């Protein structure tokens, strides 16, 4: 489904501060896979998302989604089939537009045929019923401005917007990290429900190793712009948080040793 081939992204190239955010990274994700991504700060997780979603172009390599080479496609065009949610709950919704209007914007991704069309009763009902099916209690607040909702509610609406029309790929960039524990848990639960029910191919960045192992079907750990660990199936089921930390340390040390050799 998603094929990232030897993607490279270098910041401040040819300067003292040169930093390889992605180092010849290759990743193959099958349709319906739910991959959780962990890794330290600066490991290249967000850069990988930026390159896939098109908010950054890679310096080398290619991104292929569903057989189509999207390496150089502009961000807004990719967005019609890639859903992306950020850490900041303010980023995914327009505060001065109502819940209904925000969802309508997301719904329009698929129905761009008539830009001068006014949303029909049928479309409004569909959106309302879709929201109601998720038991968020927001279907009665369709005409409330999004800015008046809590961070958790806004992030839930963002999630609904990203999946209202099933995306080919869903990118979740620590989307619960800015929420309080209770809201984070309920947004995560909603995420899991939506992804499983619709069988959406998903990549999720998280700093919470417990949820990285509990959710999804596969976990990768990134380090220095490469995939350091890639586990799925039974091996993953039997893994504990402690094991992951051990593995992580081993990876770190190995690189440290390499550096020593170089020096």
């Amino acid at each position, binding site marked *: 489904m998603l094929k990232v081939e030897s993607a490279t992204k270098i910041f401040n190239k040819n300067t003292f501060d040169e930093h390889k955010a992605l180092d010849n990274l290759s990743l193959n994700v099958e349709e319906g896979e739910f991959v959780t991504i962990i890794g330290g700060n600066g490991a290249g997780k967000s850069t990988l998302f930026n390159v896939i979603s098109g908010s950054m172009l890679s310096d080398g390599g290619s991104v292929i989604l569903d057989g189509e080479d999207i390496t150089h496609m502009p961000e807004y065009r990719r967005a019609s089939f890639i859903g992306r949610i950020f850490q900041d709950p303010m980023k*995914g919704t327009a505060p001065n537009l109502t819940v209904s209007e925000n969802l309508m914007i997301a719904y329009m991704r698929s129905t761009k045929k008539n830009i001068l069309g006014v949303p029909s009763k049928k479309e409004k009902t569909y959106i309302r019923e879709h929201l109601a099916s998720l038991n968020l209690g927001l279907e009665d607040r369709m005409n409330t401005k999004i800015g008046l909702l809590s961070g958790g509610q806004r992030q839930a609406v963002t999630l609904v917007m990203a999946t209202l029309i099933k995306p080919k790929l869903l990118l979740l960039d620590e989307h619960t990290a800015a929420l309080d524990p209770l809201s984070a848990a309920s947004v995560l639960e909603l995420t899991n429900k939506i992804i499983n029910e619709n069988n959406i191919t998903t990549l999720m960045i998280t700093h919470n190793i417990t949820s990285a192992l509990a959710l999804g079907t596969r976990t990768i750990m990134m380090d220095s712009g490469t995939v350091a660990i890639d586990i799925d199936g039974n091996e993953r089921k039997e893994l504990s948080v402690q094991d992951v930390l051990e593995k992580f340390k081993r990876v770190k040390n190995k690189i440290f040793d390499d550096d020593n050799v170089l020096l």
Partner: protein
Amino acid sequence: MSITAFIGAMELGLVYSLLAFGTFISFRILNVADLTVDGSFVLGAAASAMFTVVGMPVAGIFAALMAGAIAGIITALLQTKMGIQPILSGILTMTGLYSINLMVMDGKANIPLLNKTNIFTYSENIIGTAAHKIFMLAAVISAVFIILNWFFRTQLGLSIRATGDNEDMCRASSIDTDFIKIVGFALSNSIVALSGALVAQMQQSADISMGSGMVVISFASLIIGSVIIKNKNITLGLLSVVIGSVIYRLIIALILTTSFPPSYLKLISSLVVVTALSVPNLKKRMDTNKKQRVGA
């Protein structure tokens, strides 16, 4: 205030509410203070005047709409494709338009339209002399109002509103925000030029300097309007613009009945805008100071 002065203020309020519709789109919806307005207002007046001189006032109105849209597109292109700061883009277009406007006006700083047939001649023929301009203006404003009210509910209109509100979200929803801004600024300046076109025909002259300070005047109207009607939705937002513009002109007319020198009007407009934009922040700061004092 005499009846004549009142009617005059109403006429000005109505004709300048079109100007305020234009800045409502750029300032309130797209969230950019678009200074192109000072130039596109004159551009509309100039285009309308040149057509009126040769006896085609209605064609002049449409020419103004077109010319204004082009001015808006240029500002939007500077902003989006060339990456120039929004405010500077507007200033650049406005400055360039000064020369363009002179060119349109055949190199003359003033085009008199006395005794030329204009669109208000038509309304006078139908309704008679008394307050006929108000009817004509009300008709034009109603049409613009209805069109805008419909437009901002369409998919394109909704995208424009969302772009001003949260651009990141729009790109994530597969909206080409550059294109959206181009449409928004074109529409905005087109309506501003319409306002200029009507002013020229109403006052029977177009002048190269008639646009100076138009941005501030329209902001003052927007602010007065939003104090009276809190912007709940797009319909009320548009309505507040008309009311704000009329009240602004009535205030000015009241000031003029005193011995206050008219040359101070622009200063007053500026002060109105400064006050309205700064009061919320000053209030917040005062509250914080008070709390700090109590805390200490």
